[in-house]
């Protein structure tokens, strides 16, 4: 009986079924933060914005990837994260009258074959989130050719799944171009 309990307890106490990552709630957070005015304190204070997309005019320099979880994820491991860009012209398709009524990404764009960055992230766990540090965002646009824009980033996250099996999670982010 005692032996049976020990067998059951092993996977629970380590990484395994008890660690549940909610990939659907993955978001990005400004790593360095911006100073913002706090009307309560009447001071400029650091503010760390959260992002679900990187819109023109509000593109962070460096972000973390934050993944909410439940359970014990103390042994959760990520081997690396590769970031790919989907590149097209840095111009809004159609006339200006069209810019307010549909998704603006041009059709038939393809991701680059080679990632523009590959990160072996530092992993932190805080307040029910796995936090992966740290990913360049702005640089991915600054290093493009003339009049080129990355309309999407694709994050390929390689991690050890249950029973130590290698797994990959893909997360795409829009980078809407604005005037």
């Amino acid at each position: 009986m005692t032996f049976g309990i020990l067998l059951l307890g092993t996977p629970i106490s380590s990484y395994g079924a008890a660690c549940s990552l909610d990939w659907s709630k993955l978001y990005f957070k400004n790593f360095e933060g911006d100073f913002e005015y706090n009307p309560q304190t009447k001071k400029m204070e650091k503010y760390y914005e959260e992002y679900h997309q990187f819109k023109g005019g509000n593109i962070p320099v460096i972000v973390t990837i934050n993944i909410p979880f439940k359970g014990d994820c103390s042994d959760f491991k990520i081997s690396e994260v590769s970031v790919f860009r989907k590149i097209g012209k840095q111009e809004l398709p159609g006339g200006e009258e069209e810019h307010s009524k549909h998704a603006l990404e041009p059709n038939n764009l393809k991701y680059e074959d080679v990632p523009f960055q590959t990160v072996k992230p530092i992993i932190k766990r805080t307040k029910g989130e796995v936090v992966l540090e740290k990913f360049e965002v702005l640089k991915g646009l600054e290093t493009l050719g003339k009049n080129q824009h990355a309309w999407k980033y694709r994050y390929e996250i390689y991690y050890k799944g249950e029973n130590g099996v290698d797994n990959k999670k893909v997360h795409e982010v829009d980078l809407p171009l604005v005037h």
Partner: protein
Amino acid sequence: MSPVSPVQNFGGIPQGGFDITTPFYQQSYMMGSMGFTGRGFTNDGVNCLSVSNNLSTAMAGLGLSGSMPMTSCQQFADDYNIPQAGPTIERANALAKLREAAPLPLGEGGKSQRDSIAGSIMERAKLGQFDGYSPITVDPNIVNNGRFLSGLDTTCRVFLDGDAGSEDEFGPTRDDQEGLSPESLLALTAELGEQPLWRPAGSERKVNLPNPKNDIDLQEKAGYYMYNYGDEITYGTPRTIYNIQAAGKLLAEQGIVMGVGDISKKTGNTPGHSEHKEGQDVDLRLVGKTGPDGKARSARCRVDNSSCYDRENTFKMIKAFIDVDPYGIDKIFINDSALQGMVNTYLRETYSINRVNGSNVSRSCAGHADHVHISFKRHANPTPDEMMEAAR
């Protein structure tokens, strides 16, 4: 063909020099040797006939008659890329005061004062830099002592276009009308210097907008703070940067601190934008409500969030940009139809600007529910077509 809108005429140099105690449009004007009643250059050439005669007088007075063709007024305007309209009369009045308050040095490079004046005018005209509402380099002492009054006066009239007209022709007086007051313009010039001329897009080096950073006192004095400045999308043409600073000064007087976002990268692409490439666009956060301390600040907000968005204060911010450079505004994106209406009405009623490039100046565009996008015109001066269109 319709004449140029009266409010766009620049009255030229008043006879006997500037009188800072009398409104510009009420001063008497020397008309050269002939009377001139036209409002300015028009495509039908009717008024040009008189101007052309004045032109001959003017050129002779300045010793320039042999240096340029004496065809017709219209031809002259075309050849030298002289726009066919000027500023509001209020602006002209203020500029006249400015010139008197701070005359630019003349007689540089060993040239006579007369040649210096004429040269300045001619060079700027040739370069297409005469936008009709930029101050002209004139020393009021010269005007006042009368030595070159005839030639200078008439020449300026030729270049700056049109007849001062009567008060009625220019509509309501300063007291009845909004817009930038001469006092405000004087204060701006004292602090920021002269408003730089527009140059063709991409033809000049961009400059960085001074950053008040996290010093709240400096922000309130400048009337702006900068967000996202770590991305270094903070460069603009000298005129754009001047306009932002000037608008900030006007807002500071009203207790408003605006949030300035992306302008342009110093060189190369400006990430995330289809525009913002040549330093002539600026993004601004929405302005929030006025607090108990009488201050209002921009913040992260959307137009559908009444807890942080104040339409009236955001209008004040846009109005400051319009007042600083009314004819330099190309478009204003903000996804609040009520605010668009306020802006377009202000442009129409205060500056007689109805449409630019066939569209309302203020309009909606995807992605502009959380900020205002202002574009300044991408060429040095308004084209004749734009001026005519704006006057319709």
